């Protein structure tokens, strides 16, 4: 079965007395683009951080290609091919573009038995990466804080898509961006899908998801309200589900 890349089963998470996720099931098909929508505090970002290894779930399991995932850490998730582009891009402003791209998986070389950072190789690889992705930054040796918002997002995209990702999670990828940058994000999603990578988009902007998504999952207050194929629904129905927290068709799509 070549169907699902990711299956999350029975995921629950509480922060102290606040229950963020209640028994969530979510599947992401291979090369599928899933839009994850919902009001603030619906648990979208928390759910995706669980998938990306940044938060540990209290209960539940994650299957990748049908096999249980064992990672408990973002690096493990990244090694399993799950990358996340955070809403604030999660870049370190003082580090260079290349340092940010390789943060946590630096290229090393040995000098007299001592492992040192291979800065030249990382800079060269970073340049190749930007060229291959058609993204532009002024220089990979500039600190990230010198870049514009759109350029910073390009760095975050390059980091998430440049290492043989199988799933790229994007948290509000079009928030606070101008029209050209939004077009770039949509283009990136299309390119990922075309090369067999799955994408989950967390977004407030339904138009983005209707534009590039295959299916939509609606969450409210830590639960999944319902799921729809993009071809099988319309804006108003999704908005109704977001607002009421109920599936108007009465059953949850399988």
């Amino acid at each position, binding site marked *: 079965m070549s169907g699902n890349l990711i299956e999350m089963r029975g995921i629950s998470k509480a922060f102290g007395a606040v229950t963020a996720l209640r028994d969530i099931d979510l599947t992401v098909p291979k090369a599928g683009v899933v839009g994850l929508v919902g009001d603030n505090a619906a648990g979208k970002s928390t759910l995706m*951080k669980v998938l*990306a*290894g*940044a938060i540990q779930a209290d209960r539940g399991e994650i299957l990748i290609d049908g096999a249980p995932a064992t990672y408990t*850490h*973002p*690096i*493990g998730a*990244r090694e399993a091919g799950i990358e*996340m582009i*955070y809403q*604030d*891009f*999660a*870049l*370190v*402003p*003082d*580090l260079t573009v290349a*340092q940010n791209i390789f*943060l*946590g998986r*630096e290229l*090393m070389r040995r000098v007299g038995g001592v*492992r*040192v*950072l291979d800065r030249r190789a990382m800079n060269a690889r970073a340049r190749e990466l930007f060229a291959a992705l058609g993204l532009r930054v*002024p220089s990979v040796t*500039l600190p990230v804080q*010198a870049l514009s918002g759109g350029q910073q997002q390009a760095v975050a995209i390059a980091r998430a898509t440049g290492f043989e990702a199988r799933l790229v999670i994007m948290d509000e990828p079009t928030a606070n961006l101008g029209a050209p940058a939004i077009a770039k994000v949509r283009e990136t999603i299309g390119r990922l899908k075309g090369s067999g990578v799955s994408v989950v988009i967390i977004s407030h902007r339904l138009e983005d998801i209707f534009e590039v998504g295959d299916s939509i999952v609606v969450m409210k207050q830590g639960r999944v309200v319902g799921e729809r194929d993009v071809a099988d629904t319309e804006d108003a129905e999704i908005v109704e589900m977001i607002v009421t927290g109920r599936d108007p068709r009465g059953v949850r799509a399988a």
Partner: protein
Amino acid sequence: MSETAATRSGFDIRMQRQIVVALVRYGMFIALAIWLVAMSVASEYFLTTTNLLNVLRQAAPLIIIGVGMTFVMATAGIDLSVGSIVALISVLAGSWLALGVPPLLVIPLLIVVGGLLGAFNGWVVTLGVPAFVVTLAGLTSYRGLAFVYSDGYATPIRDPVFAWIGRGDLFGINAPFLIAVVVAVLGWFLLNRTRFGLHALATGGREEAARVMGLAINRIKIMVYALTGALAALGGVVISARLSNGSPNAGVMLELEVIAATVLGGTSLFGGRATIAGTVAGALLINFVRNGLNLLGVNPYWVQVVTGIILVVAVLMNTVLNRKVESWARASTEEERT
């Protein structure tokens, strides 16, 4: 290649910008150089080998401990306990040597003790207590332990091997400064060429980003405080050996001088930006200013005032002015590219 008036003036403007950027970026090194030249003119005793080597020896503990402080500040932390670690180490050195423990065993043991005290600081920091508070507690309690252990008495140190660390020399250069040079070179390497240094900077630069990228933030924090504790112990060994004395009063206010040297050098108190060369320059400047003013016969209390003024000016340059100039320089390089 004909040179038109327009490209020529563009070139001149670029040159000017580069000069301004360099002035601000390397301000501390320039200030140090100017001070050295000025003092050489002002005092006939300043530019003598004896005086210069003496100042380098005085600066050595500051450089040694400042290297550790640079790492702590890279992670957006601070360590106020280093002066008190020096005192505790000094007391232990005096006591253990008096008991007849061989010095070549005493020194590594002391460094381990310093490292453990630092690691403890770091561990409490990872529990969520602000570094300022944790190490302020260290400042009072470690010195308190030094007084309890020694009953307030200083112990003379007579062991010649141990004393060499503070008083000996090699190739005509005193041992404390040689040790400081080795520590600074290793510290530079660790900060700029290894994964540990990069991750320390990332942790201080934006901790949440470092966390979601999977960096071992708690381990990094414990390690930078342990490193600083170990280097404070090494500094304590140098100071005790130089004074031939194991005293609970060693290193009083030293933490503030170390922090001043580190900040003077351009390391950010808010993390993410750190420079070992800057810390060395800061430590040298503080000591050369003190030495120069002493040679000129200035009331020693003024030295503290002057150091304070330099500190404020330097931090002003490193933060406000530097940010403006750097972004200005970047804007001009981007113009060139387009």
